[in-house]
């Protein structure tokens, strides 16, 4: 009888230790989720929701950038070159339903000549794919003068933590040179200009891509060398003689 009581006591003690461990583990998981911004009262199913604002924490390890491929809100498929090009690309990861994103949608819709950081920078708006966004809603928000692509894959590839979120890619090196989140375009503009200034070598500051080409054209034109000038094609007959 005494042996039975002892065995039962040991079993209870072990169970108590086990339950304590489980509770501790559960509390640790909840704490980590809380740190990541996932509340228990959020709607399930990936529905759009307001997100915390402010500059996001830098990611620990940035992988190389990739091109963006996905669907068009108006119907169709598209791929946008981000790497292997002589320009910067600003990827604006927006949601159709997040409150903070609304000001950016409006800014991009109303500004055909948006002042982007860099000289030849291209703005590409990226929403999640039709599995998480309404194409009709995105089509109604998409700016006419800037490309919009629906791609959940791009969100995964760039490990976008929140929306709105902005990532600047140097197409020449294929690397992310700046990223962050903010509530206004002015904040993002300042953040990215600083990131670009910090990352660019001296030879690339100020001019890139078409701007460099335009500057070369201007210099040649000032010297009297226009398109078709024989000196540009040594050993070839002039265009008019072909």
């Amino acid at each position, binding site marked *: 009888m005494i042996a039975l009581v002892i065995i039962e006591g040991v079993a209870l003690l072990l169970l108590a230790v086990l339950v304590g461990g489980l509770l501790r583990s559960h509390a640790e998981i909840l704490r980590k989720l809380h740190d990541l911004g996932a509340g228990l009262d959020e709607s399930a199913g990936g529905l759009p929701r307001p997100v915390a604002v402010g500059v996001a924490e830098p990611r620990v390890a940035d992988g190389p950038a990739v*091109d963006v*491929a996905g669907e*068009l809100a*108006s*119907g*169709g*498929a*598209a*791929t*946008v*070159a981000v*790497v*292997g*090009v002589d*320009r910067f690309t600003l990827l604006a990861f927006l949601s159709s339903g997040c409150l903070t994103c609304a000001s950016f949608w409006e800014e991009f819709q109303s500004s055909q000549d948006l002042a982007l950081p860099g000289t030849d920078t*291209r703005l590409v708006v990226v929403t999640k794919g039709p599995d998480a966004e309404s194409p009709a809603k995105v089509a109604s928000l*998409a*700016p*006419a*003068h*800037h*490309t*919009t692509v629906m791609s959940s894959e791009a969100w995964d590839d760039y490990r976008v933590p929140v929306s709105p979120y902005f990532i600047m890619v140097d197409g020449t090196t294929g690397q992310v040179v700046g990223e962050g989140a903010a509530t206004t375009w002015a904040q993002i503009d300042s953040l990215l200009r600083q990131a670009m200034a910090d990352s660019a070598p001296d030879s690339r500051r100020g001019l890139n891509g*078409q701007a460099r*080409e335009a500057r070369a054209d201007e210099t040649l034109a000032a010297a009297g060398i226009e*398109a*078709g000038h024989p000196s540009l*094609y040594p050993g070839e007959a002039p*265009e008019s003689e072909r």
Partner: protein
Amino acid sequence: MSTLSYEGVTVELPPGWDGAIRRMPIPARDLSVGAEAETGESHVVVHAANFPLPPERGDFGSGAVEIMRSQHLLMVIFDYGPDAAGTALFRYEGIPVPLDPETFDPNMMQRPLPLQSGLQRFFTVNGRGYCLYVALGSHRNRHALVEQANEVLRTLDLDGNPVDRGVPTPP
């Protein structure tokens, strides 16, 4: 290379290229039966370019060719549908590749622009008529640019019919 695929059309794009495949409604003026809303007819349009494609552009590249620089090229594949297949204009069977740089002509541009040149080829694949339109940012650079166009065209697959690698006949 990135793969662009939609509505049975697949094409491989080299690094640095933009591409889009869209199904566009046929404008009412092109229909003998009335407004597009009554027919629901549409066609597939493929755009591929070695420069950033503007989001607002016409089927044959208006809005895009105007911003092309000398090293740029734009390719358009326009699906005219089954009614066009086999007609005199579309009698060439298969995707016409390789293109010959010497067949490009500044007067072949949908809208002639200084220094640019273009080419149109009409053909039939799997019972559907298509038009291939290629615009070059500089006629002078046609050899290098057409080489790029041919590289992309060789990867084109229309409705399960990959490119015909035979020698094209003039349409």
